[in-house]
């Protein structure tokens, strides 16, 4: 849209072009984005929360329990997602992605793509009948391919918003032109196979980037079977296995045959701290979550043995070292200082070749299951998002902060902030603190313009 046209439009709406819009866009609905949004909303500012998945909660929603307290992730998170969903100042745009951003602090113009859900959410009551009756079952991405999801789905029973979307690649009607079961059973006629992507334009004064993290795919690790050994899984998969809402309803059963694994090998630093072959940086959370995994495994499989291969133990948070010690001393977890060179499938076992550098001996474990603590990476779209926003990202795609020590949540562009793992690997506590900091920076910016003619918030 040309600038002149924009001006005419603004004038018509009685807006001063100089007005500083006191409304924030938060990109990413994980724990960081949720925390920033709630802070800003509670301060009285309007927030637009954009999430690419159908509902908010992010990675934390996939976790079973969290370190170092071992409290249930969903129980701590769900009140927050509900609060976000019901907050009078927060507008959710889920199943949406930021398409284009122009403008400057106080006056960003944002184009957001609302992906076709094939469901009219204004009509949908979230009764769930469509999901029950849908005949197309597919491996669930949320359950890391271990459980099944219908072609029309919500991410979890407590999804916020509790509105389903249709996976067009799996829907029988959209693929083959036959079925329409969900349409038949929907009591309010919310199914809309003709729905197309829609675009909305918004004006905001500040942006918080909280696009989160992903895991380095197992396919990258040829020495660990390249993702072809079914009982070699990654950390998030173990979270799903251990989660009461997961594919095994919380029982530790291995993917290949559903047996309870009696010997489990956990491997830290898979892809992290390996500059020659993979990523040079430390993913920061693996030491702790691997200890957590091993302990949770021992809580459920009392006669099982957990082995952890590690390079160093980095447990710098409050209560973290105690958590590790407890696992070593009281729960009989066997820590082996060394790396694993290879693993392969042998019958129904996974043979793991490693080394214990403290004794200088080679170690071979015939394991029932292996859990790889694969490296944290930014979301695949992070670099592209940074480009759209005109901010810098490092070679991996982590957003670059304005100053490594003194300006940890600001970016190079005034009005654009970063929160959580989008900036670099963080555990939940740090991600929340970072997000709180980003929200206060936004409030500071808005407060500076308190006497401007206000728009939005």
């Amino acid at each position: 849209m040309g600038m002149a046209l924009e001006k005419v439009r603004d004038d018509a709406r009685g807006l001063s072009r100089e007005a500083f819009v006191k409304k924030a866009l938060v990109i990413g609905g994980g724990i960081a984005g949720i925390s920033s949004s709630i802070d800003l909303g509670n301060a009285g500012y309007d927030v637009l929360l954009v999430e690419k998945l159908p509902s908010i909660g992010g990675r934390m929603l996939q976790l079973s329990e969290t370190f170092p307290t071992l409290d249930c992730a969903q129980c701590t998170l769900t009140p927050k997602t509900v609060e976000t969903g019901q907050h009078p100042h927060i507008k959710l745009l889920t199943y949406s992605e930021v398409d284009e951003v122009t403008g400057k602090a106080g006056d960003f113009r944002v184009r957001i793509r609302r992906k076709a859900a094939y469901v009219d959410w204004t009509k949908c009551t979230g009764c769930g009948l469509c999901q029950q009756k849908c005949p197309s079952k597919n491996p669930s991405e949320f359950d890391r391919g271990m459980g099944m999801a219908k072609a029309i789905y919500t991410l979890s029973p407590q999804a916020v918003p509790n509105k389903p979307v249709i996976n067009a690649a799996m829907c029988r009607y959209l693929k083959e032109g036959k079925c329409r079961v969900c349409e038949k059973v929907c009591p309010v006629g919310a199914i809309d196979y003709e729905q197309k992507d829609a675009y909305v334009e918004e004006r905001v004064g500040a942006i918080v980037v909280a696009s989160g993290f992903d895991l380095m795919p197992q396919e990258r690790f040829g020495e660990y079977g390249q993702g072809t050994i079914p009982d070699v899984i990654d950390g998030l998969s173990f979270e799903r296995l251990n989660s009461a809402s997961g594919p095994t309803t919380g029982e530790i059963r291995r993917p290949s045959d559903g047996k309870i694994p009696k010997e489990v090998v956990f491997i830290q630093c898979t892809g992290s701290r390996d500059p020659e072959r993979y990523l040079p940086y430390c993913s920061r959370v693996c030491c702790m979550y691997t200890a957590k995994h091993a302990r949770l495994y021992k809580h459920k499989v009392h006669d099982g043995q957990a082995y952890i291969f590690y390079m160093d133990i980095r447990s710098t948070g409050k209560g973290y070292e105690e958590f590790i010690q407890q696992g070593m001393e009281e729960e009989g977890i066997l820590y082996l200082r060394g790396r694993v060179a290879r693993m392969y499938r042998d019958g129904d076992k996974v043979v793991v070749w490693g080394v214990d550098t403290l004794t200088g001996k080679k170690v071979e474990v015939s394991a029932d299951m292996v859990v790889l603590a694969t490296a944290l990476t930014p979301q695949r779209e992070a670099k592209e998002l940074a480009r759209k926003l005109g901010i810098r990202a490092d070679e991996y795609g982590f957003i670059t902060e304005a100053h490594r020590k003194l300006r940890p949540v600001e970016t190079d562009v005034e009005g654009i902030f970063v929160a959580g793992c989008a900036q670099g690997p963080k555990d939940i506590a740090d991600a929340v603190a970072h997000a709180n900091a980003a929200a206060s920076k936004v409030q500071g910016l808005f407060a500076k313009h308190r006497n401007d003619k206000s728009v939005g918030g």
Partner: protein
Amino acid sequence: MDYLYFPGCTLYTKAKNFDQTARTCSRLLGFELKELTNWTCCGATFPLATDNVMALLPPTRILANAKEEGAVLTTLCAICFNVIKRTNRVIQGDEEKRNKINAFIEKNYQGDLRILHYLEILKKEIGFPQLKGKVKKNLSGLKAAAYYGCMLLRPFDEMEFDDKERPTIFEDFLEALGARAVDFPFKIECCGSFQSVGSPDVATECAYKILGSAMKNGAEVIVSTCPLCTFNIDHKQTDIKQKHLDFKTIPVLYFTQILGLAMGVEAETLGFEQNAVDPLPLLKEKGLL
């Protein structure tokens, strides 16, 4: 197209069957192996010390002489291939060494030969689908395990041969001949290499594990690309049998022998008499002879 061919020492002695079958098959596939007029031993090991320039002289001389006769050089033995290819890289990329060596051997070689393994010719120049079309005797029903060993693949970034940890070129080759390629976890493990001279027990144990893993996964025959690997996993099977009473022998063929078999080459010219474990009973049982 014709390719310059560096046979290497072993292919003139212990692995004549490797050399002969490669030449025969190339003619059947429509290309000629033009043996270098003047070649020596490649040195048999690529020097690990970066200042050991002396060890680079023989392979560089081979390369320099080859350059005078053509543009693409091929070889069969995995060790020769490793030494030649890595030396070529050094000459290409290290100006100081290039000048030093050229001055010493009185040549002016710039590292501009293209080095291809025979398997790479089959894959990249002929193409496996085309190869499949030329098969006279389909090997279907034969469960063959491709054994890569180390030297074709490592170091990965210098050899650029195939995927680091899970190569497939050899299996694709076997499948093109109609055989069933058996995947087994020890296919890229070390055969024991020169340990068979100083510490034969070490090498025997390596071979025992490799062969055991292949057989456990259903292999009836093992296919190799390297005379030294073949010595360790074929000729040493008598030693393995003495140490491990449960061990059952399994024939080991060079990949050119199995290629020849599929191309319909007469059994008499496939050189089976040089194989330590006699493959004839298996091949007869499978109706391939």
